[in-house]
């Protein structure tokens, strides 16, 4: 194996801000007071908040040091399954920070916003083309918001037909947020188990689908990284009872420009621009979770919608059946610019990006399937799911192994998800890792599997090289200390 990426590094200790500074120290100078003193009403005065007294350099060094403890896609491989932590090209950031875009005010009149409106209009068309759907709203702010929007659209559709359905089918291989989005919309989730091949069988869906069921929420590719091969037949079953098919598109990175979602029976699909379309994420936002629909759901899309007439773009609120507004103004515009920039710079290569994402995941799956238990041994999409079944004999768990991966300089993959695999290790390499880096990752995991046999304690104590060693997650959850 090549020299490991992981080292102890030059990492400095840093106390909390309250452990720094000195009474009276400050980072700015107030101008000399040139007005009369005026006493405030006593009700308005009192002790201020407990802020530390710091200079500018105290604050800058504090956050700079903390940032060196961090690990991101710009640091190294971040194979977090289900999250698509691909490298985000810097050109996207450049476009998003152009003054005309970064400074565009949402209250500017349409006549002064033609460029921004056109960009949103075109981005909607691009997303339609990539997914094979008819119309798009860019308004939802993230994936779960997109799911919720999708549920509202399905609700509005049934209502327009004078129906009120109460249930929605959610398979065990769907994203964990799906039942929550359905519940928030007033639907009761009906769980369905995937079959022994890790996908949904039409029979299982037929058994629970009835005229009181609003539809189904599938994640395709699903959370096992497998393509739902029976989706067309499942969609026919759901449609035959008047239901709608919602697809969670969080795993779209496997199928950009490859699967025509409309043709396989999807009625509404959400995308995560912050995953698939390469804008930084993982820090809590902002995200962008557009919904793409087929023609019959378009009248219900949220307002305002970007429309074009004779080459003039404007925002229209005149959509009588719309489910209404879901976000201030028109969503997270900065994310949209980055996705627009990404799509235009990739062009037809978007399809190749998906192909490489799938190839990389299958390469890892094949290289590691002799070392780790592979519950579903069949071609995967953009991610593969192993378990700790083999290592269990040495009392080594998934958690121990992925903690050890940090010592080798990699971000751990997603663990203990999906729930259908006991002790799951879910690896999504994405298309942006080179073969050399993927090989290094594979070597690291093979070395860890060997350590699990020969020196399990090394894994129980891992990570041992990092700035912060094994965290006590139990105490952190049972007795959280959220103070500064």
């Amino acid at each position, binding site marked *: 194996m090549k020299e490991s990426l992981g080292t102890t590094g030059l990492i400095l200790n840093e106390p909390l801000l309250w452990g720094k500074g000195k009474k009276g120290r400050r980072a700015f100078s107030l101008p000399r007071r040139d007005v009369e003193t005026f006493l405030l009403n006593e009700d308005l005065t009192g002790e201020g908040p407990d802020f530390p007294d710091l200079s500018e350099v105290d604050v800058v060094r504090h956050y700079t040091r903390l940032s060196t403890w961090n690990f991101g896609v710009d640091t190294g491989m971040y194979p977090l399954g289900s999250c698509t932590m691909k490298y985000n090209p810097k050109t996207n950031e450049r476009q998003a920070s152009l003054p005309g875009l970064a400074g565009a005010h949402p209250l500017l009149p349409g006549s002064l916003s033609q460029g921004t409106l056109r960009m949103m209009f075109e981005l909607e068309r691009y997303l339609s083309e990539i997914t094979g759907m008819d119309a798009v709203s860019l308004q939802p702010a993230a994936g779960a918001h997109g799911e919720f929007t999708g549920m509202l659209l399905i609700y509005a559709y049934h209502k327009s037909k004078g129906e009120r359905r109460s249930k929605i089918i959610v398979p065990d291989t769907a994203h964990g947020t799906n039942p929550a989005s359905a519940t928030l919309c007033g639907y009761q989730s009906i769980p369905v188990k995937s079959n022994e091949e890790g996908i949904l069988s039409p029979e299982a869906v037929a058994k629970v689908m009835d005229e009181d069921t609003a539809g189904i929420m599938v994640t395709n590719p699903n959370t096992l990284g497998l393509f739902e091969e029976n989706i067309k037949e499942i969609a026919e079953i759901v449609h035959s009872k008047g239901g709608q098919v919602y697809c969670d598109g969080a795993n779209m990175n496997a199928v950009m420009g490859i699967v025509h979602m409309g043709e396989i029976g999807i009625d509404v699909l959400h995308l995560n621009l912050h995953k698939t379309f390469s804008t930084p994420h993982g820090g809590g936002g902002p995200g962008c979770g557009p919904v793409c629909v087929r023609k019959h759901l378009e009248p219900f899309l949220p307002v305002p919608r970007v429309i074009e007439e004779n080459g003039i773009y404007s925002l229209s609120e005149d959509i009588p059946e719309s489910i209404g507004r879901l976000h201030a103004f028109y969503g997270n515009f900065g994310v949209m610019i980055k996705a627009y920039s990404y799509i235009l710079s990739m062009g037809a290569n978007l399809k190749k990006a998906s192909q490489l994402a799938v190839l990389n995941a299958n390469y890892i799956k094949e290289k590691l399937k002799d070392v780790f238990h592979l519950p579903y041994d069949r071609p995967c999409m953009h991610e593969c799911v192993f378990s700790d079944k083999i290592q269990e004999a040495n009392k080594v*768990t998934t958690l121990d192994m992925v903690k050890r991966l940090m010592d080798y300089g990699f971000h751990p993959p997603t663990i203990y998800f999906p729930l259908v695999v006991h002790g799951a290790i879910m690896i999504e390499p994405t298309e942006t890792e080179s073969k050399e880096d993927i090989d290094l990752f594979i070597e690291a995991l093979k070395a860890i599997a060997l350590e699990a046999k020969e020196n399990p304690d090394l894994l129980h104590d891992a990570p041992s090289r990092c700035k912060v060693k094994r965290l006590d997650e*139990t105490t952190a*959850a*049972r007795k959280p200390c959220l103070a500064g």
Partner: protein
Amino acid sequence: MKEISDLNLPEDVCYTEDHEWARPEDDSVRIGISDYAQDQLGDIVFVELPEIGDTYEAGEEFGTVESVKAVSELYMPVGGEILAVNLDLEESPGLVNESPYNDGWMIEVKPGDPAELDDLMTSDAYLEALKGEE
């Protein structure tokens, strides 16, 4: 994780397929989760229990248990009205790990139909079922 042979499966309680246990007492039934369940979940950090006076049917979800790994639902081994809940679990959810059949009990129920207890498994049957899951 424990080997199946190391599990503590007392004979004075009945078991469900979802790994809850039920212990008949004078007029009530005490309910919790099995040693196998707590071992599989790992360190438990939060237990969500119902209100006293609520009623549930057998098999209905009455709460959730959250460990560092996952959140799992809790299902009623028998139907009935909630007479008591173990408030100690609010402060010390780890009791479920330390003492799943005693201090880590979850709810006490006035059973609607005590015959439902007969549908549950004995410790021997439960042990066999666990071996089947391996």
